[in-house]
């Protein structure tokens, strides 16, 4: 059989360990760089009810707003430009697929990213660069407009406006969210027909769960504990209610919780779904650290953050694509001694995470 059939598109997994208290720790900047998150999930072993402080943070996640047929040129209006300049503003086109359609995003850095198909790019007339993930012919281009440096009335402004308003009046559904309180989306959207959405919280208590035993200093699982891949697989199994106690001879499934393992009487699994700003993720991370500061039965808590499959960027402004999957997610394991593990995973069409 031909060897090509045994190959798969590449995937990347970056594993880091560090300590939250280390001044050089990059955990916060790495989380902040991951702009578009669609779900977070929290696993707390030896816990039956969501602790009040964590619940407070989770239920205070910012709202996000859904607007249909939003003209991209609106971002060039004065009040929108002002809002973008204040920072903490996130916009992502929805119901658009990064491997097929035009996808638009505004990053908190003020960059307007247009990931465009061939026809749209050629008609638009704004200069961009070919997608890194092109095949034989370039059929996708990325146009980046720095909204922060765009000044009303200048030639450059007029040109961008003309392109987005006259040449290709691009319209698409959008999701917006804002962090930090500097930008009021309700004011911005006053003239639009919008739908305010609250991130949806779901909690589930798991009984008698087999857990791998983690050693904070052993990130790679070299001294006989679990490897990062095994751990992430197990986390996935828990999130998807996959049975972990199969025999090697079982017909259906041979999956088993990695060794060494121990049994915990209960664990809490909480997920929040919606467009979640990185700032909200950081707040949650801080609260998890506080939770672990007090003596607890568990020695660790895990926080998974899933990125949007169809976002034009993954971390920072690094281009994100979709081949047969658009996975881009990261996972923090927070330990009692303020050590942490950070796993960052991407698929075939992504740069290496920061």
């Amino acid at each position, binding site marked *: 059989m031909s060897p090509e059939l045994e190959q798969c598109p590449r995937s990347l997994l970056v594993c880091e360990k560090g300590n939250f208290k280390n001044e050089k720790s990059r955990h916060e900047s790495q989380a902040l760089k991951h702009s578009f998150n669609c779900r977070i999930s929290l696993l707390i072993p030896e816990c039956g009810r969501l602790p009040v402080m964590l619940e407070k943070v989770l239920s205070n996640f910012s709202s996000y707003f859904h607007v249909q047929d939003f003209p991209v040129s609106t971002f060039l209006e004065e009040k929108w430009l002002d809002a973008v300049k204040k920072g903490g503003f996130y916009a992502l086109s929805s119901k658009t697929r990064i491997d097929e359609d035009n996808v638009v995003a505004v990053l908190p850095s003020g960059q307007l990213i247009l990931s465009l198909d061939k026809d749209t790019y050629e008609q638009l007339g704004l200069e961009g660069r070919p997608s890194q993930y092109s095949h034989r012919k370039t059929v996708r281009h990325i146009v980046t407009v720095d909204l922060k440096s765009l000044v009303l009335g200048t030639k450059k402004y007029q040109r961008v406006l003309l392109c987005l308003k006259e040449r290709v009046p691009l319209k698409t559904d959008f999701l917006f969210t804002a962090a930090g309180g500097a930008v009021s989306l309700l004011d911005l959207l006053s003239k639009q027909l919008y739908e305010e959405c609250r991130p949806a919280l779901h909690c589930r208590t798991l009984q008698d769960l087999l857990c791998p035993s983690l050693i904070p200093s052993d990130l790679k699982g070299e001294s006989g504990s679990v490897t990062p891949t095994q751990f992430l697989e197990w986390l996935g199994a828990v999130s998807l209610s996959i049975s972990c106690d199969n025999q090697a001879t079982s*017909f259906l499934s041979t999956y088993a919780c990695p060794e060494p393992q121990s049994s915990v009487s209960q664990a809490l699994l909480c997920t929040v779904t919606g467009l979640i700003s990185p700032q909200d993720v950081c707040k949650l991370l801080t609260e998890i650290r506080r939770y672990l500061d007090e003596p607890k039965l568990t020695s660790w808590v895990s926080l998974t953050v899933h990125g949007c499959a169809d976002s034009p960027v993954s971390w920072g402004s690094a281009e994100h694509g979709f081949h047969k999957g658009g*996975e881009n*997610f990261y996972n923090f394991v927070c330990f009692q001694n303020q050590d942490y593990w950070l796993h960052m995973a991407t698929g075939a069409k992504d740069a290496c995470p920061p």
Partner: protein
Amino acid sequence: MEKKPTPYERVVCKNTSLYHYMKINLVFDSRNKSLSAEQFKQLIITGLKDLYGEVGAAFPFDVLTFNQTELSAILRVYHSSLVKLWSAITLIGSYESVSCAFRVTQVSPFLLALSGNSREMEVF
């Protein structure tokens, strides 16, 4: 608890996953047929055998979850067999002489990614 904080460490792993994971479901024309998890797996094994012979029928893969009402499942397969398992599933067209089709919702080298697929979320 350890006394001094662990030093910073970073490892980049390429193609670290031994497995790939597939979220699939089986559809029939009108009314769903009733299948047990074992019959479901057997149907896929038959598909593998049809396309790749005895060697194909011996490819190990796991049915990690199976939902009998939805006829949906999560499969785990060695990454070296993914293309073959997927193509075999694609070409399965009938079960007990009744037309059927497998629909593949997601494929990923990370099981965790299957629990947070924005393409399955209504708003995205």
